[in-house]
C-alpha cells in the first residue's frame, strides 16, 4: 500500500465506470444520462493513460486524443437531438420515447 502502482489507477477507472453505468440506469432525464456517458468515457481515458505509462508507449495518449474528439462530436450531435426532441414535448424524460418498440 505504500506505492502507487498502475493497478490503483485501473481500479479507480473501474469505480468511475460503474458509477457512470449505474447512473445511466437510474436517471430518467436525458441530459443527466448524457453526463453519465461522459463519465464512462472519461473512465476509459484514464485506463488508456495508465496503460500508456505502464507500457512506456505513447500510443495510449494518442488513443485518448481520438476518444476525446469522438466524445466531443457525439456530445454535439446528441445535444442537438435532445433539443429538437424537447421542442415537441416539454418534459425531459426519455421514458415516453418508445417509438422503436417492436
Amino acid at each position, binding site marked *: 500500500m505504500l506505492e502507487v502502482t498502475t493497478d490503483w489507477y485501473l481500479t479507480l477507472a473501474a469505480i468511475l465506470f460503474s458509477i457512470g453505468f449505474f447512473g445511466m440506469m437510474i436517471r430518467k432525464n436525458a441530459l443527466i444520462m448524457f453526463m453519465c456517458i461522459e463519465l464512462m468515457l472519461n473512465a476509459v481515458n484514464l485506463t488508456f493513460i495508465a496503460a500508456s505509462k505502464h507500457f512506456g508507449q505513447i500510443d495510449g495518449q494518442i488513443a485518448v486524443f481520438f476518444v476525446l474528439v469522438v466524445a466531443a462530436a457525439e456530445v454535439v450531435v446528441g445535444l442537438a437531438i435532445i433539443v429538437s426532441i424537447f421542442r415537441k414535448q416539454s418534459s425531459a424524460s426519455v421514458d415516453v420515447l418508445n417509438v422503436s*418498440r417492436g
Partner: protein
Amino acid sequence: MDFLFILPIFLPLLTAIFLFLNRKIFNELVTNFFTLNSALLSFAISFFAFVTFALDKFKPISITLYQWTRTPDITIGFTLDGLSGVMLLLVTGLSFVIQLFSTSYMEKDEKHSNYFVYFNFFVFSMLLLVMSSNFLVMFFGWELVGLSSYLLISFWSQKPAAAKAGNKAFVINRIGDFGFLIGLMIILNTFNTFDFHTVMQSSTNVSENTITTISLFLLLGAFGKSAQFPLFSWLPDAMEGPTPASALIHAATMVTAGVFMLVRISPMLQHSATASMVIISFGLLTALIAAFSAMNQYDIKKVLAYSTISQLGFMFIAIGAGAYVAAIFHLVTHAFFKALLFLGAGAVIHSMHHEQDMRKMGGLRKRMPITAGMMGIGTLAISGIPPLAGFWSKDEILASVFAKAGMANELVFSIMYYLFWALTLGAALLTAFYMGRHWLLIFEKDNGIDHSEVQEAPKAMTRPLILLGIFSIFIGFINTPFFHGLEKVLHETLENVEVTHLPEGIALVILAVLSIGAGFTGLIIAFLIFGFQLHKRINLGKFKLESPINLVKDLSSNVLYLNKFGNVFFVSGMKNFSRKVAVVVDGLIIDGSVNFISSAFGKTSKITSATQTGLVRNYVVYFGLFLILLISLFIFTPLVAQ
C-alpha cells in the same frame, strides 16, 4: 405381302381419328359411309391375309415395328399365327356386322359420331391386343380396351347410372390389371424379355413355383377382364351402354380377352397344376353363380349379361381342364350366337321404344317374326341343341372335363373332375332353362298388354340378325369330332402344349347324348312353366313348393346378395375407414403437428419481441447484463495460457 395383316390393326385407328376430327362437320350419312367402308375394308384385308396364311400351312408370321432396348428385350411387334388369325377374323367380321346394325340403332342420337369414334378406337385396341407378339403390346391393348369399354358404357353420360356403371367397370378392371402388371414384372425379371415365343420356349427352365406365381397374377388380370368371380359385378351394370356396343364388347370380344390371353400362355400354363385347378374351380363357380342369377332377372339385357358371364365360366373350365382348343372353339361360337342374341334384344328394345323390362313384353312373335326366329336360333344354339353351333363346342368342353377325370393320377383328383363334369352339366341345364325363359317371356307369353304399335325392326337391323343366325347354325362345323378344323389352325400355336383329347368311341356318344339331354330338359322345363303355364293348370299346393321357390327366386334376382355384400364390405367399409383416416390422421395428427410447429414460431417470436420496448433505459440494462456475461467469461474461462 406377308405383312399385310398390320393394316387392319391401324385402319380402325385412322378411321377413329378421322371421324373425331370431323365430328362436327359430318352428318350421320357421311359418318356411316366412312365407318362401314373402313370396317368392310379391314375385314377384307384380314380375310385375304388369313387365306394367304392358311395356304402357307399356318406358319406363323412375325413383324417387329420398333425395338426399344435389346436386353431386356422391349419391342413393339405383331404376329399372325393360328390363334391371332382366328381372333382377327372374328373381331373385324363382327365389327362390320355390328356397325351395320348400329347405324340404324344409333340413328337420330345426338352423339352419333362420338359412338363410331369410340367403336373404331375399341376395334383398334382389341386388334392390338390379339395381334401382339409380346406381352407389352398386349398390355397396351389390354388397357386401351378397358378405356374404350368405359367410354362406351358411360356413353349416355347424362344418366347417372351409366356414369357409375362406367366407373365400376373401369375400377374392377383396374384391380385385374394390377395383377396383370405384377405378372408382367415378374416375367420381365425372370425371362428378361416380353416376347411370347421366347418366354414360352424357356418356360421349361424355370421352377414351377415361378410359373405358378406368374400364372396366378396374370390370372387375376383375366378374371377382371373376363368377369369371373369375384370380379364380375361390372358386367351386368355395363348393360347401361348402347346395345350394339354391348354386343361387341361384352359378348364377343373384350370379355374374351382373358380367355385369349390364357390360351396364349398355355405352353407355360400347362406346367402349373395349381393354376389349372384355380382356373377350373373359379370358372365353375362363376358359371353356376351366373346361371343361377340369370334365372330370375327381368331386364332383357341383364339375362344376356349373366349368360355371358356363365359362358365365360365354361371357357375357363375348358382351359383349366387343359382343353385349349375347346376353349377357343367355344369362344368363337359363343361370339356369334351371343352377338345374335344381343342384337336381337337391341331390335326388340328399339321397337318397344327403349323399354327393357320383360314383364312388359310378351307375345311379340306375331309382330316381329324375323327377330323372333333369329333369337330362337340363338336360344337353341346356346342351349346346345345339335346341329347348331353351341352343341359342338359345349359338348367338347364337357367331354374334355370327363376325359381329364379319366386321365388323372390319383383317385381324389379323378373324383373331383367327375364332380366338376356333373356340375358343368348342371350349369348347361340351367343355361337352357333361363335362355328358354328369356325367349318365351319376350315372344310367347301373352301378358295382355297392348303391343299394336310394335313393328318389325328396320332392314339394317334384321339383315345382320339373319347373317349371324346363319353363322350360328353353321359355324359349329369347323371343329367337330369328325373334322378337326380349328385344331389344325391352332396346331402351330399350341405346338408344345399337351391338349386334353376327347375320349374315343362309345364314351363320346354317351357324353353327347347326356349333354343334349341336359339342354332339352332345360328347354322343356322352361316351356312348361312359361309357355304352357303348367303351374297355373295343375295345383302344386300339396307339394308345399311355395316358399322354396320364392327363396330361389329372391336369391336369384339379387345375385345371391353378392353385390350387397361387396358394397357393404368393400365400398362402405373403405369409405368409412378413409373418412376416419382423413379426419384423425390428416386433420388431427398431420395438420396438428404442422400447425403446432408454425405456432411455436409465432409464440417464440412474441416472447422474444417483448424485449424490444423502445425505451433507452431498458437497453442500458441489457448492456449491463452483457457486461456481466463478458466479465464472467473472462473470469471463469482460462482464455490465455499463462
